[in-house]
């Protein structure tokens, strides 16, 4: 659905994207992760034809973004990082504008507006001015607008940035529901690692390069194994025994013993069978995407909303881009 090959984008001397490849399949949720300034926004801008690539091929829905920008625009829906609604207008007027500008005939517009407002649960607020909406409602309206022209790919740039956890969950429900019903492909960026887990596949970009690509499980496997945490009255003795019997390094944190093993599925049953020291509880955890990120890039992805300054910088990059070429 999205094919990127050897994509390079330079702003003057600065190389924001250094030759990346992406392959997003039809109907999947693809997570595009990376810290601020890694080249995410630039890549997204190129995918939605707002910027021209310096080099490389980019195909969206089977169409070259440089040769057929208008056809690509018809086939993608966008949900931006920053709100892009006219808050003087009502919810319905915003959708009318969108339908009109995407060339939907009046009858289809009417039908789709009713349909998408229903989908995001804003049907009863159709006639309210957007300025009266909460952040979550605005975001839902933007999602409704983004899918109104039945795009094949929905591109979401930090769709839940700055929203509270409850609203984030709601938004995700809508998105998953949408994907189930419409078979739409989702391409998204996010800072929230727990949201990235929802992706079928993930690409991690750092300093303009893709450092890893695969399913969340595949990426986590790169970290090397699972983490077994055992709570025991005599943690020291237990750690010694594990060391002796299984030849793995066991670390003791208070009453807990932490063991990293490559394959917990076969290790844990053996451990339980052969251990003589009493065990109070045993938990098994897989490495998180944060661990993956840390290992691959050597630094943590910032797990919080981008600061105001970063947002401004992103905007400046998007809009100032054309002058710098």
């Amino acid at each position, binding site marked *: 659905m999205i094919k990127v090959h050897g994509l390079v984008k330079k702003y003057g001397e600065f190389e924001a994207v250094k030759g990346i490849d992406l392959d997003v399949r039809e109907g999947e949720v693809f997570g595009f992760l990376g810290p601020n300034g890694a080249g995410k926004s630039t890549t997204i801008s190129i995918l*939605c*034809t707002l910027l021209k690539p310096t080099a490389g091929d980019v195909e969206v829905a089977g169409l070259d973004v440089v040769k057929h920008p208008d*056809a690509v625009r018809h086939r993608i829906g966008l949900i931006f990082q920053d709100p892009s609604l006219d808050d003087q207008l009502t919810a319905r007027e915003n959708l009318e504008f969108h339908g*009109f500008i995407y*060339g939907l005939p009046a009858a289809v517009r009417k039908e789709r507006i009713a349909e998408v407002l229903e989908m995001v649960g804003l049907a009863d607020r159709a006639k309210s001015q957007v300025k009266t909406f909460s952040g979550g409602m605005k975001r839902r309206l933007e999602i409704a607008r983004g899918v109104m022209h039945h795009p094949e790919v929905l591109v979401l740039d930090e769709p839940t940035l700055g929203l509270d956890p409850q609203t984030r969950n709601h938004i995700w429900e809508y998105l998953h529901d949408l994907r189930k019903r419409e078979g739409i492909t989702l391409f998204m960026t996010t800072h929230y690692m727990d949201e990235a887990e929802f992706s079928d596949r993930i690409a991690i970009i750092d300093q303009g390069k893709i450092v890893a690509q695969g399913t969340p499980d595949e990426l986590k496997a790169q970290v090397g194994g699972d983490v077994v945490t055992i709570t025991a009255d005599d943690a020291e003795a237990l750690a010694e025994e594990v060391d002796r019997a299984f030849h793995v390094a066991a670390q003791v944190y208070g009453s807990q013993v932490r063991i990293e093993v490559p394959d917990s599925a076969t290790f844990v049953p053996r451990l339980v069978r052969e251990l003589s020291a009493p065990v109070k509880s045993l938990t098994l955890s897989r490495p998180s995407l944060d661990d993956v990120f840390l290992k691959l890039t050597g630094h943590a992805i910032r797990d919080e909303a981008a600061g105001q300054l970063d947002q401004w910088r992103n905007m400046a990059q998007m809009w100032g881009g054309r002058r710098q070429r």
Partner: protein
Amino acid sequence: MTEQTLGTQVAERRAPEAGTLVASLRAVYIIWYRDLLRFTRDRFRVLVSLVQPLLYLVIFGTGLSSSLGGGGGGAFGGAGLDYKQFLYGGVIGMTILFTSIFSAMSIVWDREFGFLKEILVAPINRSAVAVGKTLGGATQAMIQGGILLLLAPIAGVKLTVLSVLELIPLMFITAFALTAVGVALASRMRSMQGFQGMMNFLMMPMFFLSGALFPLAGLPAWMTVLTRIDPLAYGIDPIRRVILGGSGVPSQVTDKLAITVSGQPLSILEEASIVLVFGLVMLGLAIYNFRARD
């Protein structure tokens, strides 16, 4: 498959691709319509923007009219022309100027608040965005100017049906040309901060040099040159001449106010053509600015 969903799919396939004339016209229309919708929703702004012309007419006009000695002579033709009558056309021009530029500034506003992105990623021709914005701003400015026609009695002028019919196109091309200037500038502006500079270095000089407040005849040479390159001067003069002509002021008097080129006064049609051509050039620049992508 029901008939209705079939209908939807057929319609979908027929969705016009950008670049066709129909798609561009639709885009121009909806961008224009949105501007008007916002305008009508903001009635407070419409009222507030009437305060300034009223202050000029009632206070500034009355004050200066008294100190000039009522139907006095001098530059006002010595033919019983009152300063307020003279000022009226200028105030209409001023209102059109300010409304045009302010409405064009909504592009910068849209950029800062994100809505411009919704327009720029849509499958429409960028030229249509520039045209729609220019027409939208021009329509707003014309409505504002049109409301001022109700103040004619305060200025002591009479409006005939004929003069109103002549004023409408004159006001529109003036509004169009000024909005085009605004759109061309706003499309390059990245933040609202640039706006203050534009106020001081463009709008105010344009206003003072336009002949809105004083006749452009008999000025020092350097200033005469500046007034001749002010597009607003060519917009206000015909408006004023139509208004005064309709009130029965003889053409010998109004001709003395006209912009002269080597001693000969320009006709209303010539002045209007200058404004229109200027507006079209500015629109071309605005389109160029919008089309320049990355």
